[in-house]
């Protein structure tokens, strides 16, 4: 028969200690079909056809693309469910049947730029890298040859309604029913952080993993600022956040739920959610056991007599669990010739140390001096146990630096490297070169020790937000942290100088040469000065009379 497909949608709302509120949408479509080995798929139901055709045409094994506006502030907001760097990020694992990975990568980025209305066609060899250890497949698969992996970021990419519109059109219910009704661009982009992503990967259907199915997750994370709407009260509602309320679940969804994080206050003293619900759920997410109030939209009673659901959340200020790992990055130095990149990684665990993988991809026009690379923790030298460095080639590929660094407990590790700025060719400057040039975020991936035992059973029914990263062991969980992108000024020529030089040279040549030429080539004759007016009239009269002139 027809391959089974299943659609689930979920919204998680987490109030943050700074008063902001974090909403994370996830839409997941599971489809038991086989895109691999050139299998022709022609009947699409819940899975969007445009993505299905992309997967089969370009032999894609895993595809992760995200568009983010804003930077995730880990120290104020904690850890996100799905991290993403500012701008656009695309990483793809190709199947091992692909012979020309670079050519396929170029075509794939062009096609995706048309699907998502983004300038992904600017991804080329100068900003693509092949990380050897940081981006292992998140789905099933035993191909780990990093020749089939490509990773690129565009830190300058703008995210706006034109990216949200095609993203919404990929959903089975579009933006007409279910949770996607809340996605109105005027509210979503008036926020501190907005990130939308598409993740496609093959997953196991059951415990033995005899059958695989394709999973498409569309995620949207947004953090609304406390002070934007005007009032500073710690009171949020669905209508205040999204200017919409919910009236129904998506009819094509098998599950449609809203989770509200009430962990710090299950009794409801400091925290108030209305309309009240008795459904509670506990989940192990991000190394912590969290409690959630659950609203099931597939049940008609959730919407009450008014047939619409507007959740109201009120809380008093609360403490936040300090994030165990976070990072910063900045450029030091002065002038337009040299500089220094500093990356700081903070390990806030009181007694455990853990290793992190740092991935840095620096464009070729910042020439890194790797002999000046230093890694120090607590003032002492900290030698990385694994370094993979690929030097850049001018106008061909960027620097790639991957290091495995052990972070001591309760410490700051600083990685510094000096660089020199290159002078670009005239045509390589953007139309606004004085804005500066962006360096993509560093990626820090690590298995962070967790306080509670994580759930390793991947096939049990779990809420979507806790089942994104596969969990292999109980004592730690996988986390990825992105640093800020850097904005670096390159020495910029004065683009009006050619015009100025041409004008000046031509004037000098014309005036100087012209006069010199005349002085040298003209012969000078003595000439009688012309007679006055009276004499001229007299001469005319004498000529008429036939008499010689005066």
């Amino acid at each position: 028969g027809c391959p089974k497909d299943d659609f689930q949608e979920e919204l998680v709302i987490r109030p943050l200690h700074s008063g902001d509120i974090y909403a994370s949408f996830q839409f997941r479509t599971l489809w038991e079909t086989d895109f691999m080995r050139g299998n022709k798929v022609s009947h699409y139901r819940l899975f969007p056809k445009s993505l299905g055709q992309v997967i089969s045409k370009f032999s894609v094994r895993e595809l992760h693309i995200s568009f983010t506006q804003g930077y995730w502030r880990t120290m104020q907001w904690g850890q996100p469910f799905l991290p993403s760097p500012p701008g656009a990020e695309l990483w793809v694992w190709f199947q091992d049947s692909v012979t020309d990975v670079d050519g396929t990568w170029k075509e794939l980025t062009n096609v995706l730029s048309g699907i998502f209305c983004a300038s992904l066609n600017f991804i080329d060899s100068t900003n693509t890298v092949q990380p050897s250890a940081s981006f292992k497949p998140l789905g099933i698969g035993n191909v780990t040859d990093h020749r089939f992996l490509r990773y690129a970021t565009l830190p300058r990419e703008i995210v706006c309604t034109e990216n949200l519109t095609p993203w919404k059109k990929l959903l089975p219910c579009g933006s007409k029913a279910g949770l996607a009704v809340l996605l109105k661009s005027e509210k979503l982009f008036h926020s501190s952080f907005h990130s939308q992503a598409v993740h496609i990967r093959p997953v196991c259907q059951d415990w033995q993993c005899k059958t695989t199915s394709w999973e498409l997750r569309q995620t949207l994370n947004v953090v609304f600022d406390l002070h934007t709407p005007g009032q500073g009260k710690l009171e949020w509602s669905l209508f205040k956040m999204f200017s919409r309320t919910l009236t129904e679940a998506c009819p094509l969804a098998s599950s449609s739920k809203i989770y509200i994080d009430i962990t710090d206050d299950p009794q409801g003293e400091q925290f108030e959610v209305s309309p009240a619900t008795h459904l509670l759920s506990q989940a192990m997410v991000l190394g912590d056991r969290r409690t959630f109030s659950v609203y099931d939209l597939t049940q008609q009673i959730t919407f009450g007599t008014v047939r619409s659901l507007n959740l109201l959340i009120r809380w008093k200020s609360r403490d936040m669990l300090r994030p165990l790992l976070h990072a910063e990055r900045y450029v030091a130095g002065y002038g337009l010739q040299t500089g220094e990149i500093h990356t700081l990684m903070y390990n806030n665990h009181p007694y455990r140390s853990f290793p992190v993988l740092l991935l840095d991809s620096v464009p070729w026009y910042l020439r890194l001096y790797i002999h000046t690379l230093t890694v120090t923790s607590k003032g002492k030298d900290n030698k990385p146990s694994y370094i993979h460095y690929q030097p850049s080639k001018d106008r061909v590929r960027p620097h790639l630096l991957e290091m495995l660094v052990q972070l001591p407990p309760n410490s700051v590790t600083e990685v510094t490297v000096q660089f020199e700025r290159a002078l670009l060719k005239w045509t390589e400057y953007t139309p606004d070169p004085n804005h500066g040039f962006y360096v993509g975020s560093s990626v820090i991936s690590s298995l962070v020790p967790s306080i509670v035992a994580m759930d390793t059973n991947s096939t049990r029914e779990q809420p979507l937000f806790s089942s994104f990263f596969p969990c292999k062991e109980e004592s730690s969980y996988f986390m990825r942290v992105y640093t800020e992108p850097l904005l670096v000024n390159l020495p910029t020529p004065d683009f009006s100088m050619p015009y100025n030089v041409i004008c000046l040279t031509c004037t000098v040549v014309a005036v100087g040469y012209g006069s010199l030429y005349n002085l040298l080539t003209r012969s000078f004759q003595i000439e009688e000065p012309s007679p006055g007016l009276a004499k001229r009239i007299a001469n005319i009269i004498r000529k008429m009379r036939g008499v010689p002139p005066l």
Partner: protein
Amino acid sequence: MLAIFAVQLTLAVLVTSVFACIQYRPLLFFSSGHTNNWAVLVCTSRFWFNYRHVANTLSVYRSVKRLGIPDSHIVLMLADDMACNHRNPKPATVFSHKNMELNVYGDDVEVDYRGYEVTVENFLRVLTGRLPPSTPRSKRLLSDDRSNILIYLTGHGGNGFLKFQDSEEISNVELADAFEQMWQKRRYNELLFIIDTCQGASMYERFYSPNLMALASSQVGEDSLSHQPDLAIGVHLMDRYTFYLLEFLEDIHPSSKANMNDLFKVCPKSQCVSTPGHRTDLFLRDPGSALITDFFGSVRKVEITMETINLTEPIQQTYSYVDQLPVSEIIHQKPKQKDWHPPDGFILGLWTLILLVFFKTYGMKHLKHIF
């Protein structure tokens, strides 16, 4: 007897007239000549203070979508992002009227070329169709010989050029040649070209391909002015010509019979300060017979009938491609005589300064010997 004969005659007349009507209907049905509509809308300016150019383009986009042209048939090129610009006090919005009355950005917009992708090269490649094979469909102008295309350009321009992104220009000669390439490759049936820049009329001076109609917001030597600023946003929101064009188009609905002569009357000098111009000598139909919806909308004539209509004779093609404009006329086109303007004050002053310095150095007595 006579009465029967009269009845028979009238019946015969009626039947023949009805029969003639049915025969005539295919001709009426296919009178417009185009079967699909495309639009290429380009904003060429970067930076926040050029907000009005993006608002101009988005207003035309909005009208064109409202009148029926789908996103797949619109190539929208915006050189900078104003809606999600960090300076925009109302993110995800672009307003055309002050006091934020009309958000022309909307909730359902698809921008095909954005940011640094809007270059002269990409624009000409879109027009002529010479794109790399991996270009997605939404970025291509897939028009054919029965397409009516609307091309709208806005930005900063001058006499004979239009500035792209503050770093390069397209000249009117290049544009005319691009349209000729489109004509020779049968990429359009009729083309309406609208430009809203300073000295916009210079951009359509050099056109020489048939079936082109052009409108500009100002003549050579005139500047197109902006309409009104919004103090909350801090920049000018629209240009005058496009503002009044938007007002005119808001009254057009898909079944409207307004024609091009109404479009030429948009924004007279009293409202626009500049003099809008138009050019119809290359357009083979009478502009009065060309409907606004022929270019701005995608109106499909659908007539449901239960009768069978025999298309016995082929529909008479009123246009044939080959001898529209004889080649010899094009080659031997005399360059237009440029009006002589007296040199303006700055040039005169500069030359006076140069001459004074020169003669001070060399002395006045050599004046007549040297010159």
